[in-house]
């Protein structure tokens, strides 16, 4: 599958995506996300600080999953330069930030990925990499990745939509499940996900269609039992994530006729306690060109940060802490049901 951009789809435009969400909302009489927050006294939404610097090092990916909110694919060329990474490292040195969360695309495909991890590692910060698993088997260039991760005590977070082939391949592409399992076995071999090793391997579940993720703990025990029994695979925790109604998942919702009911479901299952913990409150998101956003979703919707600081080169904690977080209808994806964030359920 090519990216929306390469296919010349109208949906490649963030403006068009936002227009569609707002059109459905008004046609269906759905309240604005802001109004919903007003009702519970949480508007404007303010950050609690910046604990996590989430850096999206590019849209290039070896996969092209149907639900991808980044519209990442092998045909995307945007990758973060070494200079911008250097600017991220300067910000990362700030004592308040405890964690660097590296995402993409397939972040490992950025030519300076290893250098970036090495430098961040010198700063003594916790490093997370959102690894799509198959990249580990994508050729000579990437062969030593598990060992490299282990050397720098990188926490690996990997998407695996389901513990069975059919649903995983339907979403991520033919053969992805088998290769993901092989990659998990490799990671296990060097200690990732094995109790007592200190090498953390977390999996990310997201629904294979227009429905919400159910209870995270039940899903985690199902995944653990099934993956262990059939493939001998172990992992630490499972994070359940809601599919965001943007980009390629929005395309699926539109084409399958599920958009109205999906959006309605997100709104009717709004959970106030999840709203209090949304990830934009303690995370700052950096785009491949150094632009700043409240989260990776706002980044993909081109909703740059409000306020004076809009580039990582101008990083200034006090000014960033005073900003109001930008909200649109997609934000309902973070507050539906048990809530959803990069670290899984919120409530």
């Amino acid at each position, binding site marked *: 599958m090519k990216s929306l951009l390469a296919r010349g789809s109208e949906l490649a435009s963030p403006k068009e995506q936002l227009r569609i969400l707002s059109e459905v909302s008004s046609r269906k009489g759905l309240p604005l996300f802001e109004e919903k927050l007003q009702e519970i006294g949480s508007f404007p939404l303010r950050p609690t600080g910046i604990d996590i610097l989430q850096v999206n090092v590019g849209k290039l990916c070896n996969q092209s999953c149907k639900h991808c909110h980044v519209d990442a694919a092998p045909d995307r060329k945007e990758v973060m330069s070494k200079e911008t990474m250097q600017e991220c490292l300067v910000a990362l040195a700030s004592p308040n930030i405890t964690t660097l969360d590296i995402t993409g695309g397939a972040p490992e495909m950025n030519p300076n990925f290893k250098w970036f991890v090495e430098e961040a590692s010198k700063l003594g910060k916790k490093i997370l990499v959102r690894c799509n698993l198959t990249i580990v088997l994508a050729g000579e260039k990437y062969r030593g990745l598990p060992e490299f991760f282990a050397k720098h005590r990188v926490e690996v977070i990997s998407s695996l939509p389901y513990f*069975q082939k*059919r649903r995983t391949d339907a979403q991520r592409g033919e053969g992805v499940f088998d290769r993901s399992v092989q990659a998990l076995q490799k990671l296990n071999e060097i200690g990732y996900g094995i109790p007592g090793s200190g090498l953390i391997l977390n999996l990310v*579940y997201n*629904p294979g*269609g227009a*429905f*919400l*993720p*159910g*209870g995270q703990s*039940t*899903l985690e025990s*199902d995944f653990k039992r099934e993956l262990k029994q059939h493939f001998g695979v172990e992992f630490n925790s499972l994070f359940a994530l809601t599919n965001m109604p943007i980009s390629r998942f929005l395309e699926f919702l539109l084409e399958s006729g599920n958009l109205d009911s999906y959006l*309605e479901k997100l709104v*009717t299952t709004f959970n106030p306690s999840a709203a209090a913990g949304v990830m934009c409150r303690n995370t700052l998101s950096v785009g491949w060109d150094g632009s700043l956003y409240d989260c990776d979703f706002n980044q993909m919707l081109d909703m740059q940060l409000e306020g004076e600081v809009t580039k990582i080169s101008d990083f200034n904690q006090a000014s960033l802490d005073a900003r109001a977080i930008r909200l649109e209808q997609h934000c309902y994806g973070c507050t539906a049901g048990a809530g959803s964030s990069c670290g899984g359920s919120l409530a």
Partner: protein
Amino acid sequence: MSQNNTYYHPEDLKKFGNIGEFQPDLAKKFFDYYGSVFADGALSAKEKSLIALAVAHVVQCPYCIDAYTTDTLEKGATEEQLWEAIHVGAAIRGGASLVHSVQALNKVKELGI
């Protein structure tokens, strides 16, 4: 006849909560009970959802089939689990008819010479 002029509308599923409009106390008792029945207990919420899916097919309620197909998927059930549950319902339904044939058998014997 207009297309909407039928007894069942998918849209009506969302209005289930409105049945309390004229008798709120009884509706509240029902929904409280319903909520407790489906909470994790000696059976997990997922197992209960699969049972509900089977029963939905037995009572042939289109609303419940819609709701519990979605709910079982949300709870992480596999398609195989969904269909096994549906077959359990179908087997009991078929068996329930057939076991009554014992009564017919008795009657045949009673009436025969």
